[in-house]
């Protein structure tokens, strides 16, 4: 009960709602870090996934590497990139966190894009070719839309992981909501710790829900289940 009161008091303090260390600013930093990393991850992993998914070449190798990549502990990668990023003169905080987060987004997006494209019914692909589509058209206009639900599912996994790991960025002097937790540990302020944990948890769950919604809604009705079988089915 005392803990609840402390947390409520922390939220109630107007000082915690303004400035660099204020809640709106920390949320913005967190979303910026996560959003940029996810965008960069999509830019990198999506074309790669479409390419190997469409051609089938290098697939098992890429998937093997990506699967090992999934076993990299996110905290370890965050700290391991720090000396490298500092060596490049990019400074603390923002860039080390972004680089680590991007590394984390690639495996789920790549694997799901590849799997999604490989899973498209060969008959549909043949039909597209029969209609005179070029290979890149087949990949982008037929395979990619059909694989979209699986790709979004992979992006959802990546997004939730990124939001979670962005909070660990505080360890390498980044902004974001993790600051409240680590600063709370250091200052022994339970209210600050719990408030930070609540905000991060809500943001992660909201991200998960948002992508869940996209997964269900974001797919064009033309290729919902049923249509996948196509005219031949």
């Amino acid at each position, binding site marked *: 009960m005392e803990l609840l009161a402390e947390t409520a008091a922390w939220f109630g303090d107007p000082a915690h709602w303004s400035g660099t260390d204020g809640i709106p600013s920390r949320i913005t930093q967190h979303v910026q870090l996560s959003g940029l990393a996810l965008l960069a991850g999509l830019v990198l992993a999506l074309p790669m996934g479409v390419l190997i998914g469409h051609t089938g070449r290098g697939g098992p190798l890429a998937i093997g590497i990506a699967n090992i990549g999934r076993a990299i502990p996110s905290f370890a990668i965050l700290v391991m990139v720090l000396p490298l990023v500092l060596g490049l003169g990019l400074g*603390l*905080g923002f860039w080390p966190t972004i680089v680590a987060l991007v590394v984390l987004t690639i495996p789920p997006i790549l694997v799901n894009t590849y799997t999604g494209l490989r899973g498209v019914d060969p008959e549909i692909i043949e039909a597209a070719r029969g209609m005179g589509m070029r290979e890149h058209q087949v990949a982008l206009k037929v395979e990619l839309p059909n694989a979209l639900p699986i790709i979004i599912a992979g992006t959802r996994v990546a997004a939730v992981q990124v939001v979670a790991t962005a909070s660990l960025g505080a360890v390498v002097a980044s902004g974001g909501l993790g*600051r409240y937790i680590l600063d709370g540990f250091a*200052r*022994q302020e339970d209210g600050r710790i719990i408030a930070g944990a609540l905000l991060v948890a809500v943001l992660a769950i909201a991200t998960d829900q948002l992508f869940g*919604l996209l997964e269900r809604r*974001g797919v064009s009705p033309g290729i919902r289940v049923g249509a996948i079988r196509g005219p031949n089915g």
Partner: protein
Amino acid sequence: MVTPGALLLALILGACTTGEGDQSASPTEGGTSATLASTLRFGGPPECPERPFCLIGLQETYGLEFAEFVPLDVGGPITVEALTNGEVEVALLFTSDPSIQANDFVELEDDQGLQRADNLIPVIRTEVLDASPGIEDLLNALSGALTQEELIALNSRVTVDEEAPDDVAAEWLADQGLDQADESIGAGASIVVGSTNFYEQEILAELYAGVLEANGFEVERRFQLGAREVVVPALESGEIDLIAEYAATALEFFNEGAGEATPDAAETAGILNERIAERGLTALEAATATNQNAIVVTRETADQYGLSAISDLAQPAP
């Protein structure tokens, strides 16, 4: 579908257009005429804003309000990096840190006597000390030999040369003739030496452990236990028996920031002993070596504003 996506995009675009430097400083908020400090960013450990010898002291003793406080690490490489990169202009490091010299930083003189005597001091469970009173002479001899230069040299060997703390400790004890054994002192009594994650306290713990082992104690090392907030409760509960502490910081930890520590080591150690006696702990003799908060700027910053003492930061903003 449009709204959350657009929101996300807006936030990301916001990041791109405003960049990282959007934490605009507003130097003249204080009402009084702006000081140099109010245009500078201060970097230090996350707990700094609440510690009497960090931001609170800088404000109360020197009247300094910085443009922004940036939470970094506890006088470690992140702080050093932030200072070198210009992410902060003023930072908190420690007097025994070899990276001050290594990076040609300027330690600003504490001309108003804010800092208290953070001399290295062994804190032991009284019960253990009573059982083996010989410990006191052993550790006092060790503390007597530990000067500031010796401490910086020890730190440098471990952190810059990346030597193992136990090797460095063993060699130093041999050099100082502190490893001369009288196994009857310990007579096989067991003692648990603990340490925080902080490398210097670990070196000290290795020194304590080495001296005790050489003199017939059965030593168990419990190092890298976390922060003081973890280690002190472990000491009180008897999980560990002996740690290396810093006189003033320990005192202010135990008295919850009552501000009783003074710039005098012996005096501070005396008050510390009064405060920890009821917790079943005893502080032995302090070393001359200190590890106090050092307010540090880069050579460039020092030259630019002509800084040599902390009070120079109170000059009017340019």
